[in-house]
């Protein structure tokens, strides 16, 4: 279903939404925040919408910090949230994470309580390669609504029935011309971009040959083994669980973790199956472009380009994909 919203009606619609839901929008190049009139729509943000589903802090239990205390589950947030200005790649990231987390209670609760309203990019970002990862930004994967800006108005695609409740009187059903315009745009995108052949090659590459390939040492040399790429990545989903105790009380929280950290795979005995920085580096990319790809048919990457743009050490994901696919 396609609707049209005049561009000048955007803020009044957002204002109306913010009265009924907790509304989040991109507030700066850094990321999303509560809607207070400010909007940053120039480009995708540095932090993705992942944090709405795998938050920096997900409490699971609360307990008295004494032997024998029986913990009490923490009920998650109840209220409904709307996130506006989600880039199609980020929404696809959520959809990819959902493949793993579909049965996870906290994730599902957040997913069910959150509307994702997409906004099409005017043009691909400078390091964007979503198309190469098989992303069709018009397909609305992970989204409830998608806004495509065109000649002073938004063409709004409805992808879920539940999202109808978000529309107000300013949304008019689109006429045929608008529908055609959107279809043309989508067609033009398909003409111009196609999934990278690298993915097909990676599917066929034998796992152990990739693992044992000689190039990892060289590729990993500049990598700092920090968590910047994993925390910024809209698809990295690994988490840690920590018990936090203050005084006599505690909470068990789930928080993002990074496979780049030495602690990530270190056993209590001190043994670490991925002790070397190279091994951790390799694991991250094998997860994204082999393990996940083999299991789900898609890479664990939406091509947003954040890691390329933000990696302080200049690690280039594209180089890695290319090198891997040549095994």
């Amino acid at each position, binding site marked *: 279903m396609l609707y049209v919203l005049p561009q000048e009606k955007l803020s009044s619609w957002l204002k109306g939404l913010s009265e009924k839901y907790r509304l989040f929008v991109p507030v700066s190049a850094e990321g999303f925040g509560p809607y207070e009139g400010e909007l940053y729509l120039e480009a995708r943000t540095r932090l993705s919408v992942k944090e709405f589903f795998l938050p*920096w*802090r997900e*409490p699971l239990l*609360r307990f008295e910090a004494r032997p024998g205390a029986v913990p009490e589950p*923490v009920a998650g*947030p109840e209220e409904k949230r709307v996130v506006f200005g989600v880039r199609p790649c980020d929404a696809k990231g959520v959809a990819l994470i959902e493949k793993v987390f579909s049965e996870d209670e906290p994730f599902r609760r957040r997913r069910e309580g959150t509307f994702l309203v997409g906004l099409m990019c005017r043009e691909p970002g400078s390091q964007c390669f979503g198309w190469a990862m098989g992303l069709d930004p018009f397909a609305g994967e992970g989204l409830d609504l998608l806004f495509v800006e065109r000649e002073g108005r938004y063409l709004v695609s409805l992808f879920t029935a539940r999202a109808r409740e978000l529309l107000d009187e300013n949304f008019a059903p689109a006429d045929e011309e608008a529908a055609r315009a959107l279809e043309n745009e989508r067609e033009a995108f398909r003409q111009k971009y196609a999934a990278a052949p690298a993915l097909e090659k990676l599917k066929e590459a034998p796992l152990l040959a990739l693992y044992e390939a000689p190039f990892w040492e060289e590729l990993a040399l500049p990598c700092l083994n920090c968590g910047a790429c994993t925390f910024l990545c809209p698809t990295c989903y690994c988490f840690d669980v920590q018990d*936090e*105790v*203050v*005084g006599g*009380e*505690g*909470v068990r929280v789930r928080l993002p973790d990074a496979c780049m950290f030495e602690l990530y795979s270190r056993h209590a005995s001190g043994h670490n199956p991925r002790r070397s920085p190279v091994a951790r580096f390799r694991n991250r990319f094998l997860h994204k472009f082999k393990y996940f790809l083999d299991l789900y048919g898609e890479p664990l990457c939406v091509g947003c380009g954040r890691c390329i743009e933000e990696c302080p050490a200049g690690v280039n994901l594209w180089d890695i994909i290319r090198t891997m696919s040549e095994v």
Partner: protein
Amino acid sequence: MSWEPKIIAFLCNWCSYAGADLAGVSRLRYPPSIRIVRVPCSSRVSPAMILDALKSGADGVLVSGCHPGDCHYLTGNLYARRRFYMLKKLLEFAGIEPERVQFAWISASEGDVFAKVVTEITERVKALGPNTKFRKVLRETGA
């Protein structure tokens, strides 16, 4: 006001702890705000220990060792002096009230000095009020 500050005191085993002991044995009066942790030497105290005390709810921290020349390990306190100087400058720079973290030399014979130092620190911390900036609170939401 009924609030009594909590002050964690890291006292070196050889001088300051004995000084605190003497203050007690001599029945000197000082506020009950102090909680003592005995350490082998003032140089054993790391900034993580000091900040951990504040994080865990202390309103002030005192680290005390032997006077220069008296260190059981000869120079431990002299190394410590430099470290604490730098730590204090750093905490001040970050806007943590410098009065909350104090350093002292107290010998085994200075029970009176111990009592006065504790009294003084307690008053200063009382004037500042409870440590709210650097005290961890348990949160279920947020970043």
